[in-house]
């Protein structure tokens, strides 16, 4: 089939599907209506615009207490990350370096991601155990440790949440691939493409392959 014909067929198929969906919503009559209590139990996600934030509040200093009890064992007293556990603080001005350190302060675009993620995934091994107020307090403390907030008495709540922005928000761009030459731009060479070939790097130099010695 020619490319353009294929494209036309694809468009036709999509239109057809959308058509069916509008006309026959619920045609299989399967599943049952979700109850409000059920939706509430699972629907904890939070968006950058604040949608999904529960009512509540938490102080930086309360966050510090919870952090020291439930988080510091892995992430370190200052968020520096013990052993190989993730680093939560620092990395300012490293994104263009050879060793970029991506943290809430240096890299993350949105405050809401901290709240959403900590509440659903942390502490590691005891997830989904933090209350809304505890999560506000921890978020506030993580912002404080990352020098986004400088007042220890700051209280983060559903009311002021969206006013706290992260410095790297503007540095996210969209996908611009393909960003290397396509067949249309550069016909791949088949014969006599180079005169000389040199080995410029070897994996053995680093020798980090697991079991390399055993096998």
């Amino acid at each position: 089939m020619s490319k353009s014909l294929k494209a036309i067929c694809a468009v036709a198929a999509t239109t057809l599907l959308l058509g069916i969906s509008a006309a026959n919503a619920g045609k299989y009559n399967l599943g049952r209506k979700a109850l409000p209590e059920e939706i509430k139990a699972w629907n904890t996600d939070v968006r950058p615009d604040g949608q999904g934030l529960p009512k509540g509040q938490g102080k930086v200093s309360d966050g510090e207490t919870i952090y020291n009890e439930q988080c510091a064992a892995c992430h370190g007293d200052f968020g520096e990350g013990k052993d190989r556990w993730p680093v939560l603080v620092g990395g300012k001005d490293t994104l263009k370096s050879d060793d970029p350190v991506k943290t809430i302060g240096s890299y993350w675009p949105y405050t809401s991601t901290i709240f959403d993620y900590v509440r659903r995934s942390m502490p590691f091994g005891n997830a989904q155990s933090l209350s809304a107020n505890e999560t506000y307090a921890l978020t506030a403390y993580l912002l404080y440790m990352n020098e986004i907030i400088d007042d220890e008495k700051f209280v983060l709540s559903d009311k002021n949440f969206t006013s706290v922005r992260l410095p790297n928000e503007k540095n996210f761009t969209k996908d611009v691939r393909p960003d290397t030459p396509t067949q249309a731009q550069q016909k791949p060479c088949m014969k006599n493409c180079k005169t000389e070939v040199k080995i410029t790097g070897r994996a053995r130099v680093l020798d980090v392959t697991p079991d390399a010695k055993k096998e």
Partner: protein
Amino acid sequence: MTNKIKPGQSESAASRRTFLKGGLAAGGAIVAGATAARSATPDKAITEPHEWAQTLGEGVDARPYGTPSEFEKHVVRRNVSWLTATPESSVNFTPLHELDGIITPNGLCFERHHAGIAVVDPAKHRLMINGLVDKPLVFTMDDLKRFPRVNKVFFLECAANSGMEWRGAQLNGCQFTHGMVHNVMYTGVPLKYLLEEAGIKSSAKWLMPEGADASGMTRSVPLFKALDDCLVAFAMNGEALRPEQGYPLRLVVPGWEGNMWVKWLRRIEVGDQPWHAREETSKYTDLMENGKARRFTWEMDCKSVITNPSPQAPLKHTQGQTVITGVAWSGRGTIKRVDVTIDGGKNWHTARLDGPSLDKSLHRFYFDFNWDGKPLLMQSRAIDSTGYVQPTKNELRKARGTNSIYHNNGIQTWHVRENGAVENVEIS
């Protein structure tokens, strides 16, 4: 192993195992078998009786769920333990060099978990659809199995596959450099059927699938993709999903990065904006040299790798008829062509594609040639149905720098020595 080995058998099994180990050792390329083939003395493998030719083997009750031959024990997923703090938040790798054809056996599909393998009771598993819908719905597994279902083969590649190779050749083995990919036939319900059942509001543009595990994995998926080809799958390669692949239910997002294929799928929220979850901000964003980061880089670009020979699978002969084989795939369509070079890119030969050519699936290629016994610099270069050409690693570095971690689909080079040993190298 569940089977008992009789006294007479254990000896031959043990010696066979040593033999296999010898064959695997890099550099130990000329092995007993190859020599025997050219020997003037009769081959004892033929002239002497084998235990297995005289005594009874195990009965049908011995292996109610079959496992591979004991001689294939080394064919396993492997972890790179220095990569992560703990195996519950880690990754292991598909042994691509031990596989052929296009389908990955279920037990060898690489794993990536963020909070370990959730053990979910299907009787207690629910899928909820809520948000911008006319009627929020809850499905049981039994409900889902009453929808019309389809069977489709798709590759799943982690966006970080080959991520350790951005700065240069690091890991010796295609299992480690390319093993975060697998290719499976899924059975499931087109996601659009479920969304139609709930009725999508006209303002809806995004979906947020959520996992039932202790990471509560979430991603933002644009609605157009969900209506196009996403599946809610409950079976892989004909049997129920494996626990480590999201049993009893996972999202299938064909051609797009593996992290979006949420496992243990329990909820899909419909919305009008993306959520900017941790896995699409802190992770799975591609940091460029200028400090900016690309987000929502969903498609897995066209890529290929020679799986044999490769560092973990050296050649066992030193010249003559030789098979080079590998896999190629593209998140944007099918593979139209794979070229192979054995002289470091001076000359290229179009490889033979064999087996089915399916959309967003692994393709198998072969290059059969007569090896003159001199060192080889092997590469493969794939071209997909959109005309995208797999780039060199240096082309990628020029466009993106070396901090991206994700989406490294550059051309891989293997150096084969005279003795058949293979090393991961980079060339000019």
